[in-house]
């Protein structure tokens, strides 16, 4: 059922204790709550309402101090359903080799294997409304050239922009085991020894409430999860879970950058975007992170006859091209199409979410994002494009042109004039085998607090190149199974009297 915190009485939570308290009503929180409700009583806390509101969204304001990045109040959404309310729904599981260690990445990878998430593949497809069971494949009939591009396989990514809010609100409304409070803003986690005793929430009228549960899960997103942990510094001065100064570090995105153009051989067409990913062998040989290359022919008819001959002649040298452009008064497109890269980002502790001095309406410090890309990130993009260009030419598909910024040996990257990144906020409370390398363990439990778990892409140890939501759902189901084993029967009366 849904309840509006703005409308409940002050003593509402005094005699209530839930099995699990899930903070955040986005993809991770909704998946987790529905799965847990098979066995547990769940309180789901959502800071917004069913629709967008300025009051809620403005709580996402923050500052960027690193590389150019999106406005922090625009790169995510703060109402029921979270950022699934504006996503495009490109979905795929991570590659199995994303879970394997890459020594050149300079950091231990995942403490779990892809096989640990495999049992949740089918349920994840169901939750995301995906009927097609092909995701990764190398079907030659789908290959536009019917030719192998050596070292690369073509992949398909499902498009299912499911809005979790409208899709799953009726199920939550009907559930006798889920109490979802809207306009419930998490403002503090209160410790009693090494456990969370209660989470303090506030409504938009400024009233405070304490919610008690046996187990707590933060599912607030890749920027808000570290932000709330760092803000909770009343009992632990460095913030909760931050004994090794790792909360907020390793912020990772999926850089989406145009890396050049393509010229197609006669007879080769690329009417739809094609996505290619290097083999694990090629990744290891080149010492690069996971990456995909996306190419597509420009729209409109390809010049033929005299125009094509003239264009080819003009494009033969920079001098000729510049002269022709001066005479024509506009630029001449020498490429038939574009080439983009979507790349994994390296584990970089300097890339991080911190706290600023600005306070929000509840007195919490606003986030400051210092997004950084490093040498390995640029090396990954350069080598992937170089080897793809060679394979592309080797298969007689055409030629690839590398963009100037990619040829440049400095650490330069395009800014917001390009697509830039995927709005994927990952790795800020990483999963690791040891507290020296991460914030949560292989079960997503924080190393230092015994009943505090974290869900969502902030626990990713590596982000791969694939959009994170499929993996977020898989991991939420896995976490739900773990928590259900701890709660063999509901500890409290179900929620009839809420």
């Amino acid at each position, binding site marked *: 059922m849904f309840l509006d915190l703005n409308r409940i009485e002050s003593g509402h939570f005094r005699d209530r204790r839930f099995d699990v308290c899930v903070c955040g009503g986005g993809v991770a929180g909704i998946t987790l709550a529905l799965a847990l409700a098979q066995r547990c009583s769940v309180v789901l806390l959502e800071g917004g309402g069913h629709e967008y509101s300025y009051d809620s969204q403005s709580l996402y304001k923050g500052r960027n101090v690193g590389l150019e990045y999106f406005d922090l109040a625009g790169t995510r959404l703060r109402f029921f359903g979270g950022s699934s309310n504006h996503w495009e729904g490109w979905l795929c599981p991570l590659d199995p080799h994303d879970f394997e260690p890459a020594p050149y990445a300079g950091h231990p990878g995942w403490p779990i294997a892809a096989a640990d998430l495999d049992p949740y593949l089918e349920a994840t497809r169901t939750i995301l409304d995906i009927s097609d069971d092909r995701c990764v494949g190398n079907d030659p009939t789908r290959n536009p050239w019917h030719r192998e591009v050596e070292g690369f396989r073509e992949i398909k990514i499902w498009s299912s922009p499911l809005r979790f809010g409208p899709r799953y609100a009726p199920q939550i409304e009907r559930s006798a085991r889920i109490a979802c409070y809207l306009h419930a803003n998490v403002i503090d986690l209160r410790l009693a020894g090494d456990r969370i005793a209660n989470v303090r929430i506030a409504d938009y009228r400024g009233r405070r409430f304490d919610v008690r549960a046996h187990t707590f899960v933060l599912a607030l997103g890749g920027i808000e999860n570290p932000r709330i942990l760092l803000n909770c510094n009343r009992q632990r001065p460095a913030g909760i879970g931050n004994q090794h100064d790792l909360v907020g570090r390793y912020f990772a995105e999926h850089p989406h950058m145009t890396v050049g153009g393509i010229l197609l051989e006669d007879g080769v067409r690329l009417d739809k975007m094609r996505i290619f990913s290097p083999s694990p062998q090629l990744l290891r040989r080149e010492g690069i992170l996971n990456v995909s290359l996306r190419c597509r022919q420009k729209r409109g008819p390809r010049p033929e006859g005299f125009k094509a001959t003239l264009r080819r002649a003009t494009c033969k040298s920079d001098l000729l091209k510049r002269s022709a452009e001066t005479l024509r008064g506009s630029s001449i497109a020498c490429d038939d199409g574009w080439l983009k890269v979507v790349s994994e980002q390296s584990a970089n502790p300097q890339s991080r979410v911190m706290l600023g001095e600005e306070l929000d309406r509840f007195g919490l410090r606003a986030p400051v994002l210092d997004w950084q890309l490093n*040498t390995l990130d640029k090396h990954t993009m350069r080598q992937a494009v*170089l080897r793809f260009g060679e394979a592309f030419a080797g298969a007689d598909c055409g030629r690839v042109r590398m963009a100037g910024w990619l*040829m440049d040996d400095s650490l330069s990257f395009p800014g917001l004039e390009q697509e830039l990144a995927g709005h994927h906020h990952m790795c800020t409370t990483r999963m690791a085998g040891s507290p020296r390398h991460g914030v949560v363990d292989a079960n997503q439990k924080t190393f230092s607090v015994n009943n505090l778990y974290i869900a969502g892409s902030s626990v990713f140890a590596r982000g791969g190149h694939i959009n994170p939501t499929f993996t977020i759902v898989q991991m939420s189901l896995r976490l739900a199974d773990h928590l259900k084993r701890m709660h063999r029967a509901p500890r409290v009366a179900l929620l009839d009297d809420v």
Partner: protein
Amino acid sequence: MLTRRGFLALLAWLLLPAGARLRPLAPSDQFRLVNGWICKRDDLA
């Protein structure tokens, strides 16, 4: 004049281990880079 920030950036660059610097672009034997184009050697014959 080199600014303090520029000096620190230069110093950081010089102190970087060689492996942390960008490796030069090196096409395979059968290919060459010409004005950014990844060409087959035959293209240039």
